[in-house]
């Protein structure tokens, strides 16, 4: 890990980073198992600091909360997205797929489906920056009632796209989300899998028609086994 980021471990545990550094540091944590191991002890220490004084809240707070929550939607397991999937089912069969370059997926709750060495990771990071910083980048996104969203950034000039999934509900035990590149000429091509959060880069998008996301068994499938929960036009 870089010396600079390592020095942010304790400030992170104490919530002493500003928003920007917090996000950057969390992105680093996602990729650094050693950091997570040490951070667990730091976080546990911080919790102890926070649990020294209890103060009874005003009774009105309880009443307000209990009155309110009934109207507040919750993040739920993926089952609630079934209705949404049903609506999309008819779209899938005629979709097929162009050749694409599998780069892999990084997830926060889930992890790499493809092992990557540092060089590949670096290439990927550079490529992502190229897409996100391209002059002709366009954005399409899909949000789910159950919480979470999938956002696609396409850059024709780079013949590539980046997909970023945020806070999707758990796909269920032993399940993952799998991303597919789809065109009308060939079979869908897997772009990788993730759980809850993930970001991945896809190359060769000029041939693609759609990006689709399905729920698949852990490890991913060769071809989609379920109707997509999301289809985003490229």
């Amino acid at each position, binding site marked *: 890990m870089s010396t600079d980021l390592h*020095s*942010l*471990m*304790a*400030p992170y*545990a*104490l*919530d*002493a*980073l*500003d928003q920007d550094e*917090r*996000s950057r540091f*969390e992105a680093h*944590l*996602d990729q650094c198992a050693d950091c*997570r191991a040490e*951070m*667990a*002890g*730091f*976080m*546990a*220490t*911080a*919790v*102890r*600091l*926070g*649990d*020294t*004084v*209890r*103060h*009874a*809240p*005003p009774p009105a*707070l*309880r009443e*307000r*909360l*209990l009155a*309110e*929550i*009934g109207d*507040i*939607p*919750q*993040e*739920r*397991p993926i089952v609630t997205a079934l209705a949404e999937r049903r609506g999309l089912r008819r779209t899938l069969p005629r979709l097929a797929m162009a050749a694409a370059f599998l780069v892999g997926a990084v997830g*926060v*709750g889930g992890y790499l489906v493809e092992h990557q060495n540092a060089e590949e990771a670096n290439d990927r990071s550079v490529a992502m920056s190229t897409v996100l910083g391209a002059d002709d980048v366009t954005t399409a996104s899909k949000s789910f009632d159950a*919480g979470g969203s999938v956002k696609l950034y396409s850059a024709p000039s780079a013949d590539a796209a980046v997909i970023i999934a*945020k*806070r999707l*509900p*758990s796909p269920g035990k032993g399940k993952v989300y799998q991303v597919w590149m789809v065109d009308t000429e060939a079979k869908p091509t897997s772009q990788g899998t993730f759980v*809850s*959060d993930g970001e991945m880069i896809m190359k060769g998008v000029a041939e693609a028609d759609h990006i689709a996301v399905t729920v698949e068994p852990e490890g991913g499938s060769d071809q989609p086994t379920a109707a997509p929960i999301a289809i985003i036009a490229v």
Partner: protein
Amino acid sequence: MSASAAQLKLAAAPEHDAEPSLNDLLVKVGRGDETAFAAIYDHLGSSVFGLARRVIRDPARAEEVAQEVFIQVWQSAARFDPAKGNAKSWLLTLAHRRAVDAVRHDQAATNRENKYDWSSGPDFDEVEETVTITLEHEQVKRCLDGLTELQREAVNLAYYQGYTYAEVATALNANTATIKTRMRDGIVRLRDCMGVVA
């Protein structure tokens, strides 16, 4: 908070205050059980509000933040994984993050520099009939006392008053690299002093 932070904090939960029944309740909250939510509130409301008051000071603002925390608990409880941590740590971590964000948000409208009593540190001696000092309190106080002055100031300003490490550096007239190091040394010493195993 981002998913990564949530996951991380679950992993970070200490074992010493594991409360299986609270974990079960929080899992039920994730499935929409309002009775379980009320029970979680009854068990942990005073911990969450106590922490919010420590950080925020203003009781009305602390109440708002406690409300936000519990609404977030309701919305996000499905993410809680009892295999990775305990309910109380999960809530307190959420609460601290929220409280710190609120203090910083409000900072724009006030001059914090003038509001703090530098000599006091955390309010360990606060006495009101609604306040309960926890069993951990003595140990935490002893361990904080075992830090060097700069370590203790850095931890206090950050954790109990919501300063960023850069603000701590300014307040203590030190450079940021020094403050980051003192925070690290401080938290390592606290961890070892409290016997945290994680």
